[in-house]
């Protein structure tokens, strides 16, 4: 038996403790984060899975909790990501300016996340939401850019205000802040507005189009561990809100007869599709591996939105499974890139090459992660993408399908690029001496994540069974799953069979390979050069502008959203100047006049 309040308070206290320990010794402070987050994960997962989480103790007034399958699903996933990433903290803590603060904020944001998932009160949900924003906000500038933090804050604010408005509308309708009852009480236009506002909050958190600008900046510029946490954990808050907005609330608008989908679903799916295409195209042209993965996170957020908005059993379980698969894969990929950047000090693909020869395990982790991200069996990403495809085809959403397929093939393009440019290719001399395999405690989380990625791809039924509980809870028909099979709308999948057949194929290939004559080992520089003698590794390493011919086709159009926000920014600044000119002039009497006028307008109906 464990109490949620106790866990949250424990996490927060551990955060404070890690601050003080961290003041004494940097590494010891970060070890506290490992222990605390591991403890939180184990207790949430163990007691949550056995239905032993309780919420009787009332430490704080008005802050009440309840355990739902939805919350539990996200909580286990996110605490797991936090626990895995925390293993990286001791190795990176040296690089930060405020290591003690880093440890504290890390655990405080974990506490906030737990609060978001377990609260049953909209007001405390909002409070925890803001708490997560504020704690994570100060983690970002410990990396490279302060601008990333400000844009994160700006877009989070949009999401938070949308959430707040939605809460007020529901409060108005139901008279309570309770999540279940207040969401049940809205209907008609109010429900539509609430759904739209919650969707805005989800979009802002997921970094979906058009609220996407912050995500690549934050993920590209935060410290390496924080990028992994954002991509695998904090971004998934958006998916949580999206479930509330898109699945729990009924869609609205004109219903198309042929497919049975409402207009709102089409709009959200279209925005999700745009997110996929935009994220894919941007990821293809990045030179920084972390930025590339950042755009890939954005694109995968689009998949989650498309899946959740269709709201059929295959699609919702596909969407939730994609949350798991993407969280695992993207965290593993970010950690692998982080392990490389710890040694080389850069994540630019044009400056790296041939890391596989010194870091084979990291390479394998990245390989497994990208196979999952590209949706290739036998990894977890295939199951979720398969379910999403089923749903999209079943509903006959042709244009969305174009985006979904495009993103799926495109992901193959962009995830391959770090593999080729960063891990494979020529071993560059500037990194040859310094690079070595990551230390054991960095490999542990990466290998665990890889194992889980394979497990989710081979035997998805355990997770899908848990997701079915969530589906029942949010009011969707559960997916049909056998002991090894998954039944979609128009086909049956047996992931274990695929994996074993793939294994048989590899075995045959291996036998063919091993019985033939042994190859002669030659160096990497002894390669076909049309007969020329080349001794410079950089000349033989193709990594800059990898997809140049493809990029050339669309590079004119990439800055559309960025330009839009730039213009918006300028307009806001202009508005601010205008306000300053008219309102906050040097003459106090004019200010007083304005204040009286505004008060008059506000109080018009009530008092005057």
């Amino acid at each position: 038996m464990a109490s949620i309040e106790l866990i949250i308070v424990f996490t927060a206290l551990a955060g404070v403790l890690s601050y003080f320990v961290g003041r004494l010794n940097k590494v010891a402070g970060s070890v506290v984060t490992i222990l605390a987050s591991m403890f939180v994960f184990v207790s949430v997962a163990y007691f949550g899975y056995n239905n032993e989480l309780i919420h009787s103790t009332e430490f704080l007034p008005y802050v009440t909790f309840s355990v739902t399958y939805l919350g539990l699903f996200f909580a286990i996933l996110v605490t797991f990501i936090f626990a895995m990433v925390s293993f990286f903290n001791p190795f990176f803590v040296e690089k930060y300016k405020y290591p003690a603060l880093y440890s504290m904020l890390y655990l405080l944001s974990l506490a906030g996340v737990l609060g978001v998932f377990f609260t049953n009160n909209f007001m405390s949900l909002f409070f925890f939401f803001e708490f997560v924003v504020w704690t994570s906000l100060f983690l970002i500038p410990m990396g490279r850019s302060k601008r990333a933090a400000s844009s994160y804050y700006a877009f989070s604010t949009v999401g938070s205000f949308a959430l707040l408005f939605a809460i007020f509308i529901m409060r108005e309708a139901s008279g309570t802040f309770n999540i279940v009852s207040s969401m049940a009480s809205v209907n008609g236009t109010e429900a539509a507005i609430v759904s739209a506002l919650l969707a805005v909050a989800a979009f802002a958190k997921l970094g979906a189009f058009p609220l996407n600008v912050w995500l690549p900046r934050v993920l590209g510029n935060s410290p390496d561990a924080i990028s992994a946490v954002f991509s695998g954990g904090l971004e998934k808050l958006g998916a949580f809100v999206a479930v509330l907005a898109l699945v729990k609330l009924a869609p609205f608008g004109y219903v198309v007869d042929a497919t049975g989908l409402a207009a709102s679903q089409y709009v959200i799916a279209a925005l999700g599709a745009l997110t996929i295409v935009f994220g894919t195209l941007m990821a293809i042209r990045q030179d920084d591996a972390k930025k590339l993965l950042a755009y890939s996170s954005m694109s995968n957020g689009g998949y989650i939105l498309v899946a959740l908005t269709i709201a059929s059993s295959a699609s919702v379980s596909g969407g939730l499974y994609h949350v798991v698969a993407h969280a695992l894969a993207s965290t593993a990929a970010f950690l692998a890139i982080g392990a490389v950047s710890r040694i080389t000090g850069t994540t630019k693909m044009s400056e790296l090459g041939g890391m596989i020869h010194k870091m084979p395990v990291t390479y394998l982790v990245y390989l497994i992660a990208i196979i999952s991200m590209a949706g290739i069996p036998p990894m977890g990403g295939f199951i979720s993408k398969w379910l999403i495809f089923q749903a999209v085809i079943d509903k006959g959403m042709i244009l969305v399908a174009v985006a979904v397929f495009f993103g799926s093939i495109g992901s193959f393009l962009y995830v391959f690029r770090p593999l080729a440019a960063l891990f494979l290719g020529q071993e560059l001399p500037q990194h040859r001496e310094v690079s070595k395999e990551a230390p054991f405690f960095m490999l542990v989380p990466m290998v665990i994540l890889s194992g889980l990625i394979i497990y989710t791809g081979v035997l998805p039924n355990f997770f899908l069974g848990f997701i079915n509980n969530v589906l029942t809870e949010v009011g969707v028909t559960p997916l049909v799953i056998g002991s090894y099979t998954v039944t979609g709308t128009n086909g049956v999948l047996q992931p274990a069979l695929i994996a074993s057949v793939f294994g048989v194929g590899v075995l045959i290939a291996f036998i063919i390979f091993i019985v033939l004559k042994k190859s002669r080992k030659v160096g990497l520089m002894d390669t076909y050069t049309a007969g020329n003698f080349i001794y410079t590794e950089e000349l033989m390493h193709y990594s800059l502008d990898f997809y140049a011919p493809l990029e050339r086709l669309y590079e004119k159009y990439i800055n559309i959203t960025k330009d839009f926000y730039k213009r918006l920014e300028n307009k806001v600044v202009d508005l601010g100047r205008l306000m300053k000119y008219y309102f906050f002039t040097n003459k106090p009497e004019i200010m007083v006049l304005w204040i009286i006028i505004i008060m008059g307008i506000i109080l018009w109906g009530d008092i005057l």
Partner: protein
Amino acid sequence: MITNILFGVGVAFFGFVLQTSIAGVNRKVVGRVQKRYGPKWYQEFLDIFKLLSKRSVTHGWIFDFGVIMALGGIIGTAMFMPITSDLVAFADFDNFFIFVYLIAVGMLGMAMSASGSGNPLASIGVMRALTTMLAYEVPFMIVVLTIIKLTGTSSVTGIAEFQQLASNNWFMIALPLGGIVGVMSLMGMIGKKPFETYIAPAEIASGPMVEYGGKQLGMLFIMHEITVFIEVSLFVHLFLGGAENVVLFIVKYFLVYTTLNIISSVYGRFKIDQVVLFFYKWPILMAISQAFVAIYLGWVI
């Protein structure tokens, strides 16, 4: 289960033998188109076995591991392929998406191994191969979306059986625009002439294969033959109504492959951006309009 797997291995082997022989015959056909005598029909076998008998070089473990993964992935994919509606190793599990995505494992293995050789031309070839894949895959998937939506199943045998019913036409006829898109995408898939940008022997020294010789190249040749087998028989099943017996399957297969070869023998090579622009202009428009017409209006011949 064991018998099923053995049967699947048999299918993969059948596919290899069939495609290698037909490819040899087609070399003769192309030779005749160019007023040459052409090689022996079993020339492809000679080439492959010769390569396997040679002593090759390796550039490190990833170079070999990628090749094994490539061939293994493709053999695994071919094991799911139905030959006729009854001759299928894993009935009910021959899902269309398995073919599309499990093939990608093979592609990934080959791409990985090629990049691991450290030759920039190989990386350029891989880049072109992936870009071509981005081009041809989306129109093809849209057409298949239409087919799956109409038949209600994504099992390849199921789709083939649906077309064999007396009331239904082959999808090549039922969806004429989609059929044309299918042919064009198929040419991209098996890397025939206008779209063989990623091989380009005179330009980037055969692209991904630049560093291979001996057994690695031989294994990649086997992989290529099985890949072509998978793609062409997928086309036969999806668009030409599958086959009631093995002979019919071989005939249909031969006709499809030979037609593609003859078309390709009179074409030059596109540049890589031309490939992308080509597929994102007419084929995708045709595929989308076909899908709208078939799904929303229900006009199927």
